[in-house]
């Protein structure tokens, strides 16, 4: 392909990526080093609010942002260096907790609490997703041709469901005396509250994520299974290899690039776990890094939001994803080089 055609094809997508990914990223990166705030003045103000028969009026000193001649709030932007990162990481408190060996204190600092859960969540669901995906793929592959279509359709369903809706349904099934909780209570004959402690919520979240993502892994693996060399499989059967040995020595090595691909996608996705926290309203017990960014960004009722801390936190989240991806990426790189 000559360069002009190539550029014409790639140009729009590069432009879009610059506009919608690179530019916001640079902007967030910059904002994490600056703080923009209104300039406040303290004034005495009388405010009256309705009582039942009369009004109650109070006069008090309030902080009020200064307005310029156009009626806009005057703001100032300051370079604060790593202050926002320090506010998010709280390094002194975290270090004190670590040197005291007091993990409980560490786990009450927002960032570290979120990091702990995010990592646990990512690393536990990863093998489960790959395992379940492989299982489903083999199952589909072995299903009779006549029912293969419906089986694929049904196993794909969880992946089609919108994440927030999926989480909410799990929430309603298990919350309070939801159907599933009632069933378990009846079975175990004791009172159960699944949303009253962190670990049960975490298990539900992981179960949901595996249920939701495994079909994606399955469909990728199923595609890979179609290209397994049938001759090798047949000769393995003649050599007396068991089903498990065929799987271990022929199928899995063949699927390895796909397994790495699925793992990388899953690492990226699950490190940004968010819907589960919102859908389960679990922030009292469990929070994630992405949720923390969201929380910093949400304005309170007086309209304040912490843009700088949100930016710092999202940069930290991105760094986390990159670190997690280094390992599988290195492997792919080696395979890629070895292949030539």
């Amino acid at each position, binding site marked *: 392909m000559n360069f002009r055609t190539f550029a014409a094809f790639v140009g729009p997508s590069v432009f879009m990526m610059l506009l919608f990914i690179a530019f916001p990223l640079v902007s967030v990166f910059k904002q994490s080093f600056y*703080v923009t*705030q*209104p*300039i*406040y003045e303290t004034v005495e*103000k*009388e*405010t*009256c*609010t*309705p*009582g*039942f*028969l*009369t*009004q*109650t*009026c*109070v006069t008090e000193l*309030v*902080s*009020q*942002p200064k*307005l310029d001649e156009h*009626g806009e*709030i005057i703001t*100032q932007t300051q370079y604060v260096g790593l202050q*926002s990162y320090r*506010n998010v990481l709280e390094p002194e408190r975290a270090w004190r907790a670590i040197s005291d060996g007091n993990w*409980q204190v560490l*786990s*009450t600092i*927002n960032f570290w609490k979120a990091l702990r859960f995010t990592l646990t969540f990512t690393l536990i669901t990863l093998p489960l997703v790959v395992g379940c995906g492989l299982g489903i793929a083999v199952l589909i592959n072995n299903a009779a041709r006549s029912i293969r279509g419906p089986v694929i359709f049904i196993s794909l369903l969880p992946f089609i469901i919108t994440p927030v809706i999926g989480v909410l349904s799990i929430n309603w099934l298990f*919350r*309070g005396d939801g159907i599933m909780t009632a069933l378990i209570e009846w079975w175990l004959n004791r*009172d159960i*509250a*699944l*949303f*009253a*402690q962190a670990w049960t919520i975490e298990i539900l979240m992981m179960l949901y994520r595996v249920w939701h993502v495994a079909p994606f892994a399955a469909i990728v693996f199923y595609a890979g299974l179609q290209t397994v060399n049938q001759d090798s499989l047949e000769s393995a059967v003649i050599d007396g290899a068991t089903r498990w040995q065929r799987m271990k020595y022929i199928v899995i090595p063949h699927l390895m690039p796909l397994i790495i691909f699925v793992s990388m996608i899953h690492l990226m996705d699950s490190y940004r776990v968010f819907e589960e926290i919102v859908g*389960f*309203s*679990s*922030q*009292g*017990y469990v929070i994630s890094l992405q949720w923390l960014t969201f*929380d910093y960004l*949400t*304005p*309170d*009722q*007086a*309209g*304040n939001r*912490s843009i*700088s*801390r949100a930016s710092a936190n999202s940069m930290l989240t991105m760094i986390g994803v990159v670190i997690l991806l280094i390992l599988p990426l290195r492997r792919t790189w080696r395979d890629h080089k070895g292949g030539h």
Partner: protein
Amino acid sequence: MKLKTILLAGAMSFAAAGAWSDCAFENDVPLKSLSAGFEAWKAVTDAMAECGNFSASLDQEFREKQPEAFAADPALYQIGGVSNATLVPLLNAGTIRPLDDLVEKYGQDLLPNQLIKVDGKTMAIAMMVNAQHLMYRDDVLAELGIEEPKTYADVLAAAAKIKEAGAMDYPIGGTFKTGWNLGQEFVNMYLGEGGQFFGDGNMPAINNEQGVAALETMKAMTEFMDPEYLVSDSTYVQQQFQQGKIAMANLWASRAAAMNDEAESQVVGKVTMAAAPMGSAVPATTIWWDGIVLASNMSDEEADAAFRVALEGMDGDMVSANNDTAVWLSTAYTPGDLAAGAAASAEGGAKAYPASGPMGIMHTSLGNGLADYLTGAKDAQTTLADIEADYITAAKEAGLISN
């Protein structure tokens, strides 16, 4: 069957659209409003729509949109629905207009206490008040010979008695959902104990005896609450009441009517509205109001029409038609049993919610930080100290505390 329902619904909406005659004048200026989406706002905006040329956005996340929408020129909405807390960002940004001349022109029917005055200028017109107050099952309490609880000690004693008698496993309900709800519970308790949130220069001042007392009462209550209390919001508590699972809760007055909703409730007529339990100083609750504001960024003609439409929305006809939906501020309002709790709390001296910029941050810090105490991860003093530290970080970033 289904088709019939749809047709019927269609016919009804036509009927509603055709019913402009209820409005005293015909509005020919296109107007829009943005407000919260609960029942009272629905009633008010429906009444406003009767004047024609009006469309309402009812949105529970309105507080995220409102400051930007009102800062636009011309403003994206002419009429805004606010509460005492959500008024603050609009006041700060100067995007709402004083209403004194309009009140003088059209506001003869308004009660004096509907006029929300800031520095002598009327900035908003209140239409209703709301407060959390005690609701209890009089049948359950009467059966066990328990008097109406007046303080939180009474509430806890009553709960212990009910649990002991085996009538209910978890007699108390509470809006303890992490975040805004949980923060609000602390605000109620702390003000009830007579606490002050801030010292000089917006510095936090909650790590004190009153703060600890407030926390201890909250923790004591959780002993009698469903263990999943950290996810329980107003709707959840309302349903617990309706299904007869709890006997007492400090719940919003705007939820009172749901207790007697035959379609949902199994406890119709069995729930009594009483004053919020007393703290050491005043009833442990805060008084809120909801009302309307008008944007600065529109022409005076538009403001004129917007004000008249807004007044139509909260006129006597609307109030009499929706008497039990809220505790209305109107001469047409007849306070029934459902309003008794809010009224008694106010008479007992309950404070207004101390809305301000710093309070917005404090409320968020409280809402996020209190769960650690209730789950037992921290003791009371550490919790309050950490909340203060979190507040200071956020307030510095917002520019409310100088470095």
